[in-house]
């Protein structure tokens, strides 16, 4: 027996890509690092904490969003709260704190949750679909078969398109995000502010983020205005009040300017940014109430603009309350991409089992899977 040098690798350790080691011959409690599925994920995403956290490859302006919220809220707590607690009520920082925590948690959940990515079709499945398309196409003599399929959903004709990247017919309401290179279920839009797609699994987080952010910005705006008003009531007018307040005046969602004379401009900009967030919340409230996605609304899929006459949304329950419940309080679907699962061995067996196959390579691959599945922790529902 050859004396092979090896050292035990803990499959639970934070992963770094390993160069492939030659499999040791004496497979006695040897552990070759099993690769998790996220390491071989074909889409344009980045993963952290060994696959627990998923973000789009381009984080967009997420750091800016987070930074603005954190800095604005911190300055609010430092400069406005003491004055308002002294002159009004001590509930102000409590309410502000609760809203701030809600906003940050919702933002992080929207950004780090799998939006509902559909795993790409395996080679067998893709071949089967191609066969079906060819069979369907051979019946039409003069035109190549379009890669669409029509289905009837609640007596409404819906066209399903074939996705060339994911090699499958997209389910209804699914769209392929070109930024993330994934098909996402119930695709709403790709939001650069949160640096992720908004889809079936994280739409409720996104909605709670924008609603709580509207409340937070309105609350801070109100407090700042009150603060200024109360200072200017000291008899010396608003200009004195502006000059009294710190140069970097805390106002939501705007870039800080140093000069005190710009404080007035900041107030105006803040006023508009509050309205833009409120407008977005209002728009999404309308979408939730009619069980529509931004994608469908923009394309006018059900409004009759591009579709045939009499086309109506087949997914709506025709009841605002039911629609809201379905979208926001429905059961939380699981992540379909199984980021932390282990990749199957090369023989492409569907599930890991304890088979002793004659081939040595296969044996080590199976050992790897066996070890991996023993150590497999339950999937995190993100």
């Amino acid at each position, binding site marked *: 027996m050859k004396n092979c040098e090896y050292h035990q690798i803990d499959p639970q350790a934070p992963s770094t890509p390993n160069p492939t080691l030659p499999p040791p011959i004496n497979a006695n409690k040897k552990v070759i690092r099993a690769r998790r599925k996220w390491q071989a994920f074909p889409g344009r995403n980045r993963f952290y904490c060994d696959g627990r956290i998923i973000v789009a490859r381009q984080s967009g302006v997420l750091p800016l969003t987070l930074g603005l919220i954190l800095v604005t809220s911190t300055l609010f707590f430092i400069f406005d709260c003491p004055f308002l607690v002294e002159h009004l009520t001590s509930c102000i920082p409590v309410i502000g704190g609760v809203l701030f*925590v*809600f906003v940050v*948690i*919702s933002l992080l*959940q929207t950004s780090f949750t799998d939006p509902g990515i*559909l*795993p790409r*079709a*395996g080679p*067998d*499945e893709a071949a*089967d*679909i191609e066969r079906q398309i060819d069979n369907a196409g051979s019946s039409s003599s003069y035109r190549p078969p379009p890669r669409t399929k029509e*289905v*009837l*959903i*609640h007596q409404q004709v*819906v066209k*399903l398109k074939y996705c060339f990247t994911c090699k*499958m017919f997209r*389910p*209804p*309401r699914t769209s392929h995000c070109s930024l993330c290179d994934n098909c996402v*279920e*119930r695709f709403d839009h790709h939001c650069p502010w949160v640096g992720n797609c908004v889809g079936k699994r994280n739409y*409720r*987080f996104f909605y*709670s983020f924008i609603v709580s952010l509207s409340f937070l910005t309105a609350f801070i705006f109100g407090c700042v205005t009150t603060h200024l008003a109360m200072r200017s009531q000291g008899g010396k007018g608003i200009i004195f009040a502006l000059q009294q307040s710190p140069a970097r005046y805390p106002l939501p969602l705007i870039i800080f300017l140093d000069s005190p004379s710009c404080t007035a401009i900041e107030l105006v900009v803040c006023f508009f940014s509050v309205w833009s967030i409120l407008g977005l919340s209002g728009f999404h409230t309308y979408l939730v109430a009619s069980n529509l996605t931004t994608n469908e609304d923009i394309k006018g899929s059900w409004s009759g603009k591009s579709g045939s006459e009499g086309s109506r949304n*087949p*997914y709506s329950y025709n009841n605002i309350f*039911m629609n809201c*419940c*379905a979208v*926001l*309080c*429905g*059961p*939380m*679907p*699981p992540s*379909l*991409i*199984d980021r932390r699962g282990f990749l199957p061995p090369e023989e492409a*067996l*569907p*599930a890991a*089992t*304890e*088979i002793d*196959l004659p081939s040595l390579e296969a044996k080590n691959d199976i050992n790897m899977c066996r070890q991996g599945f023993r150590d497999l922790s339950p999937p*995190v*529902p*993100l």
Partner: protein
Amino acid sequence: MAETHSLQDIRQQAAVAAKVFVQRDYSSGTICQFQTKFPPELETRMDKQQFEETIRALNTLYAEAEKLAGKSYLEGCLACFTAYTVFLCMETHYEKVLKKIARYIQEQNDKIYTPRGLLLTDPIERGLRVVEITVFEDRSSGAGR
């Protein structure tokens, strides 16, 4: 596991002859339902009735997972008030039903599919797109009903 030993025997002895994919049925919307149409490749291997029963049972289980009922609303509302952090520590209703589905598929494999040289793959492993049925080459003479 004792149940997988028979699966191992099948896999050791038989090569994959074909794979049959049962596609999703979207007539009721986006909820997870599979077509009950009997694939022609399975005609020589099993009863149409048994196949339809398996798929209907799966459809019922998935409908239970996605049902908009009191329990899921409670879960949703509780989650909303806790800024959805409760999902980090609690197993959702959907996940509980998925485990039930996995057990059901294992049971079906043991009782019906494996003795016929077939293997049902849990749809969750295929992203809930298809029910994959692997047809193994029928080498043993005693295989069949």
